[in-house]
């Protein structure tokens, strides 16, 4: 037995006053409801004992023998634990769902934006094919032909114009072929992306800003995996396609990877910016839209970033933060208790 254990056991035997073999003395009877922390038994009517070591008032459960202090309200261990576990499970489910939704939204917006960027080129390719087919294909409507004949027509047209590369080069290269104004389509999508990033910033209040950026980049990486699998799928399929889908596939094998990468980068930028600025914006919105008295329950937005929580007197938290940084104490209104 080491010195510490020996000292503890001696004290336990002697009691706080140094006397030997101190015993528990009954002080009162427990009145009201109080559940045992061990078994949940209602301790109402049990004797309150003066515990000799620390001089505390305790109650001993007659069912399981567990000792409980009566100076604090006990939490029902099992019920509180189960509630906490259920809350945690709901929170994890919410985070997983939001992760999937974010990655899906980034993926979908990337596809839409890249299609929008490539749309003028796609349209011109289809128009050129239609004008070529009007002269070289016997059927009036190419869609009416069987699929193998549509494939043969598309292959012949591609040979005639020197492939997709030749088509693009004949029109002054990639930059001349795509419509830069189509990128304006990015503005509303960027706004959505920013809002999603801001929502993540508020959702993960326990994360510092650096970790939030890491989470945002991880989500962008998940979306990039989706995009890569879509590129592989769109360029490898040789099934029964219509002629317009065949042309899109030919174009995809050449242009979809760079345009989708550019589109994803364009969407990732506001997303990461949203995660960086989200909490500040949320605090600003709360400060603008809510009167000071209603801001206190949302104080966790301030506490998460180690800022002083909002006050109820209307003093701005920025002022309080400035005082705190300058080392000045907050103004204290002296109130004397009644005699």
């Amino acid at each position, binding site marked *: 037995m080491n010195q510490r254990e020996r000292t503890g056991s001696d004290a336990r035997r002697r009691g706080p006053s140094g006397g030997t073999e101190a015993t528990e003395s009954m002080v009162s009877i427990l009145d*009201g*409801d109080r559940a045992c922390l061990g078994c949940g038994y209602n301790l109402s009517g049990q004797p309150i004992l003066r515990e000799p070591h620390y001089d505390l008032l305790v109650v001993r459960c007659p069912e399981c023998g567990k000792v409980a202090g009566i100076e604090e309200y006990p939490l029902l261990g099992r019920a509180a634990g189960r509630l906490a576990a259920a809350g945690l499970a709901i929170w994890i489910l919410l985070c997983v769902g939001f992760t999937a939704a974010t990655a899906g939204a980034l993926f979908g917006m990337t596809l839409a934006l890249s299609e929008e960027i490539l749309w003028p080129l796609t349209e011109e390719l289809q128009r050129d094919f239609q004008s070529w087919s009007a002269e070289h294909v016997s059927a009036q409507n190419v869609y009416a032909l069987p699929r193998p004949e549509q494939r043969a027509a598309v292959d012949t047209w591609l040979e005639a114009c020197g492939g997709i590369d030749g088509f693009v080069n004949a029109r002054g290269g990639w930059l001349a072929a795509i419509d830069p104004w189509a990128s304006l389509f990015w503005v509303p999508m960027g706004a959505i992306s920013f809002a999603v990033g801001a929502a993540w910033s508020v959702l993960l209040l326990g994360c510092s800003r650096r970790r939030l950026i890491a989470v945002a980049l991880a989500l962008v990486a998940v979306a990039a995996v989706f995009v890569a699998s879509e590129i592989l799928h769109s360029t490898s399929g040789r099934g029964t396609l219509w002629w317009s889908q065949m042309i899109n596939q030919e174009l995809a094998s050449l242009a979809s990877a760079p345009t989708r990468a550019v589109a994803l980068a364009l969407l990732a930028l506001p997303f990461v910016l949203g995660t960086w600025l989200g909490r500040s914006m949320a605090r600003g919105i709360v400060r603008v839209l809510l009167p000071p008295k*209603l801001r206190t329950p*949302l104080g966790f937005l301030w506490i998460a970033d180690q800022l002083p929580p909002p006050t109820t007197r209307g003093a701005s938290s920025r002022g309080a933060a400035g005082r705190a940084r300058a080392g000045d104490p907050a103004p204290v209104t002296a109130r004397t208790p009644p005699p």
Partner: protein
Amino acid sequence: MSISHHCPRCGCSLRRLPAPADPVYGLAIVTCPECGRSSIRRLHPLKAAWQWFRRFDLVAGVLLLQVACAIAAVAGAWALVSQVGSLMDSRIDSGWGGGSGEVGGLRFDHTQAILAAGGAALVGVWVGVGLGHHGAVRAVGGFVCTVVLIALAAVSIDAFTATALVRASWLLAPGLVGVGVGFGLRRLLRALWPFWWRFALRRLRRSRRLT
């Protein structure tokens, strides 16, 4: 039966004793009749958490309502500016004007004018009630700046003539009247608050007495 509460010094039951709020600290304090030690009657942690959640729920609801009102106000101001601007542009183009009911050299359909003025006044009322905690000067200044920014955005995006929008600026007048009404409404609500609060307290005390 209520939750137990015992004196930490002598163990006497304090459960049945009333715990009036202390006039200085506002705490629910119970003094032990046996030994005279005062202790604070605290809420059970689960009950306290539930109360925090209810308060958070209330505040979140108010915040959502305010956000919805802000979005509706901006969208409404945009729609008003666009509609009035396009209306004036089309009438300037067609050379329509003159006659009774002219405003600024252009004739208005009375229904449209009333609707536009009512919409602007509603936006103003929300500014007065919902943003009144910033003070009159800030709220009115923010309102005017927001409307001007929206008008500039409408000019640049919807390509209205600046003249039409300058003439449409009369919408600011009912908006400012609405802000004044909103501030009055806010003051009225604040004046009625103590009565409502006393009534709620009385109801609470009565329900506690019954339990």
